[in-house]
């Protein structure tokens, strides 16, 4: 690791160095995870447990004429069968869910189809039985009659006037308003615009215009979706599941099942990856309904991998047209983008997020970005790490690279000339706080990788090239609650509510320990559920270390306030006059440590517990600059990643290993998206590669070591300077690799994935 510390947050730490923050401590949940003892959603076992399975549509687009479940119901061992009729339609209203929003009418239809199926794999019925195998046998006994309809499988086709219509009641929201009553597949057209585009292009010495196509990709978490539900005889519903947002789930279940929030408890189990895809409910409402219908027995469900690929996630395929102009001195004079993102079966692609990402790193006076959210017969698109960002940056950063090339400028220098800084306004409106974009450009420019000669090609038909690209992600703050019990032995039991996907129990406990001046090991963190700790927004939007970290800090401050009261009782002095330095509380020549004071809790007022609930503000976006060396096999079209370096402004790295891990993981997913991953549909809309053999995610053999360069430009709004880390690393890789391929072989890649087929096509060889 390389750390580039740009500023120190001395003011925030009274000039002291951190004791805990910045250390590479062992995560508290680690031993359970390396010994196989950790309880993930699919590991739940309960008395009288039944097993549930889902019957899915074999068609991409069809009307359901009839469903006959009678034979399935008669199979011995089957305890309940449900179809769309068992689900009261959801209300046509929208709520925020994780990083995106959710319409309950659509969410309900996605969970279990009503009159139409809209994608291959759309659930049409579900069964609970005494064994998973009996449940599978029962599925085969359900008879569904379909009227097959023509599917529409990409955004451009779906936007045509004569396209098959998925949702008969859908009308385009044109810049926020419905202006036509014509049925359509275009859910919305949004626009960001500023300045005078025509004048900007007139001023340009060079203009580049290109169209990009990216394919559908999946989050690819290794743990399939699962959910276990008990709908008890008293009406209380308990759900054990793998979720990024227990409170989001509780709200979604309440809306879908038409049951008050107070009757639902969501217990988040350990989660095997999410990347945005584990916000939505899929199986949980079905498990709950099956539990109700089977006489209040708990029902466990989990997906097979083909179900995960066919019916969860994915993120949008897209068509993006970019036009940018720049002057000879390197100043970008105008930038325009037209972006159509596939929403899948229901509105809700991340196109607006992509619109904000595409030109975000640059200060632009004349800009216009148009975005279209388009429904097609594919699974409903869900958030995937920096949703919509990778496709957007692939387009934007490729054009930036081409402008730099046409102007004969170094790609980093060209970006520096145009780089956004604190105080600059983005195309989507907000004004930047203290971002560290230029610092990441500097870090890469100075890095040995950028200054090393290109590796020698390994064969005459191999070509090597180096590419650079940048990325932006908004970062989220959001709501966090936490509570703590101070124990007589000097430890603090710390209950937080953020699902821990990548080591946040450690980073949050570190911030609480730092605040209290105690050892990390003396904080005992635990993730609560919707009934044991206050409301928390989900683990997404790169918010946990920021927002829940702020809650940890304020929780620590509350504990200190209480501890001062206890010392005041002990010494019979005013609490306000007690000084606190690290873990030492003092008054005049009286001194007592946190631990010693804990031993005196009983005699100074009894047990101590505190809690906080915050609506945090002040997140600052993350920016990153990546450089990659690739080797292109000009005979087969295969691209190998030789070396990869990613510099990112993280604000403050609380646990550097897990910060590096986020960067590594985001880069690896970005490489997969860039080179291999795609949904392959036949012309009837059947997903043809619904396995992890054919949906080809990177293996250990496909990747080199990835160097993470941590740049620290502290966020002044956070007690420890934190900025979100998790998402931005997936934004630049596709563009960086495309730019490297160009430097290697002289062709601009405008299609993802850049797999052998598409590279050979671009080379004119097939």
């Amino acid at each position: 690791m390389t750390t580039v510390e740009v500023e120190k947050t001395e003011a925030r730490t009274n000039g002291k160095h951190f004791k805990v923050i910045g250390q590479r401590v062992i995560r508290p949940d680690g031993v359970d995870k390396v010994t196989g003892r950790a309880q993930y959603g699919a590991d739940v076992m309960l008395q009288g447990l039944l097993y549930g399975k889902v019957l899915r549509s074999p068609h991409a687009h069809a009307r359901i004429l009839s469903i006959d479940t009678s034979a399935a119901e008669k199979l011995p061992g089957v305890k309940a069968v449900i179809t769309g009729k068992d689900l009261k339609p959801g209300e046509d209203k929208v709520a925020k869910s994780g990083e995106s929003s959710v319409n309950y009418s659509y969410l309900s239809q996605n969970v279990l189809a009503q009159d139409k199926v809209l994608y291959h794999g759309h659930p049409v019925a579900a069964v609970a039985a005494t064994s998973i195998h009996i449940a599978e046998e029962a599925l085969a006994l359900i008879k569904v009659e379909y009227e097959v309809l023509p599917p529409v499988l990409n955004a451009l086709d779906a936007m045509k006037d004569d396209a098959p219509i998925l949702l008969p009641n859908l009308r385009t929201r044109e810049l926020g308003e419905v202006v036509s009553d014509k049925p359509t597949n275009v859910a919305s057209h949004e626009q960001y615009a500023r300045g005078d585009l025509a004048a900007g292009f007139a001023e340009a010495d060079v203009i580049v215009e290109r169209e990009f196509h990216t394919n559908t990709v999946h989050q690819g978490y290794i743990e399939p979706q699962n959910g276990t539900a008990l709908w008890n005889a008293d009406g209380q519903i308990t759900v054990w599941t793998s979720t990024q947002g227990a409170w989001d789930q509780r709200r979604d279940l309440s809306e879908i099942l038409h049951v008050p929030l107070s009757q639902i408890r969501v217990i988040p189990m350990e989660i095997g990856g999410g990347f945005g895809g584990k916000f939505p409910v899929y199986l949980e409402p079905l498990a709950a309904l099956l539990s109700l219908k089977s006489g209040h027995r708990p029902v466990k469900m989990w997906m097979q991998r083909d179900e995960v690929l066919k019916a969860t996630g994915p993120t949008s395929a897209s068509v993006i047209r970019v036009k940018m102009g720049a002057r000879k001195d390197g100043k970008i004079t105008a930038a325009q983008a037209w972006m159509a993102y596939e929403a899948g079966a229901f509105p809700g692609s991340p196109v607006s997020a992509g619109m904000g990402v595409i030109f975000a790193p640059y200060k632009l006076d004349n800009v216009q970005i148009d975005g279209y959210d388009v429904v097609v017969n594919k699974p409903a698109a869900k958030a995937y790490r920096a949703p919509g960002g990778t496709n957007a940056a692939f387009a934007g950063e490729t054009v930036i690279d081409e402008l730099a090339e046409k102007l004969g400028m170094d790609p980093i220098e060209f970006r520096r000339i145009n780089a956004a800084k604190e105080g600059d306004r983005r195309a989507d409106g907000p004004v930047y706080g203290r971002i560290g974009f230029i610092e990441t450009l500097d870090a890469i420019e100075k890095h040995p990788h950028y200054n090393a000669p290109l590796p020698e090609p390994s064969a005459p038909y191999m070509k090597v090239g180096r590419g650079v690209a940048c990325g932006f992600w908004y970062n989220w703050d959001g709501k966090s609650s936490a509570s703590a019990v101070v124990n007589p032995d000097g430890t603090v039991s710390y209950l937080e509510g953020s699902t821990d996907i990548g080591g946040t129990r450690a980073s949050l406990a570190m911030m609480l320990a730092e605040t209290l001046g105690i050892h990390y090991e003396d904080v005992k963190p635990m993730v609560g559920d919707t009934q044991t700790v206050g409301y928390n927004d989900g683990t997404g939007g790169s918010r946990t270390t920021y927002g829940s970290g702020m809650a940890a800090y304020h929780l620590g401050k509350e504990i200190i306030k209480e501890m001062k009261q206890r010392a005041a009782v002990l010494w019979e002095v005013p609490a306000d006059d007690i000084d606190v330095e690290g873990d030492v509380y003092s008054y005049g020549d009286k001194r007592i440590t946190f631990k010693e004071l804990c031993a005196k809790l009983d005699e100074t007022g009894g047990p101590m517990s505190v809690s906080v609930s915050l609506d945090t503000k002040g997140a600052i976006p993350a920016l990153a600059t990546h450089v990659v060396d690739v080797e292109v096999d000009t005979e087969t079209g295969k691209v190998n990643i030789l070396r990869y370096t990613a510099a990112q402004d993280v604000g403050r790295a609380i646990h550097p290993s897990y910060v590096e891990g986020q960067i590594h993981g985001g880069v690896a997913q970005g490489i997969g998206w860039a080179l291999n991953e795609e949904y392959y549909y036949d012309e009837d809309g059947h997903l043809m590669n619904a396995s992890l053999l054919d949906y080809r995610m990177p293996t250990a053999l496909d990747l080199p070591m990835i160097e993470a360069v941590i740049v620290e430009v502290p966020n002044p709004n956070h007690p420890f300077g934190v900025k979100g880390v998790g998402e931005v690393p997936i934004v630049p890789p596709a563009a960086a690799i495309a730019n490297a391929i160009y430097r290697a072989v002289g062709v601009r890649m405008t299609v993802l994935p850049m797999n052998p087929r598409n590279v050979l096509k671009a080379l004119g060889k097939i």
Partner: protein
Amino acid sequence: MSNKVPVTATINDEEKSFLCEPRQSLLEVLRDVLNLTGAKEGCNNGNCGACAVIMNGVLVNSCLVLGVEANGATITTIEGITPKEGLHPLQQKFLEDAALQCGICTPGFIVAAKALLDKNPSPTEHEVRYWLAGNLCRCTGYDKIVRAVLDAAAIMRAEKQTA
């Protein structure tokens, strides 16, 4: 109805007898019959390696083995790799090197890495990557996993020398 078959196998140094249906995979038996849930189901068709176990000295995906095939076999799962005291060097290094994020693939990686180090105590980075290519991780980009395996190998070699 079910025609269960009696099976006896040595699992993690203990003799286990159980009944299983011929259609149940070893993974299902481990998880649902024997409550050894350390082996994880990620794909159920041999592509992700999350269910890896060592069977008669060979690394296998337990989702591709039938429970009845385990009769007479010697099987080591992640639960059996954990020593009586402390942790196996692989487990220790995965923790110290932060080689896990969500942790769902971790048991499979540790089992697979153990099978590698049993055969080859001094693997190169490439050999580690090649061997572990049957295990998918979506969180880490493999960087810290590969380092952890190389670090654990070094510790195990040193331990062997002093032993």
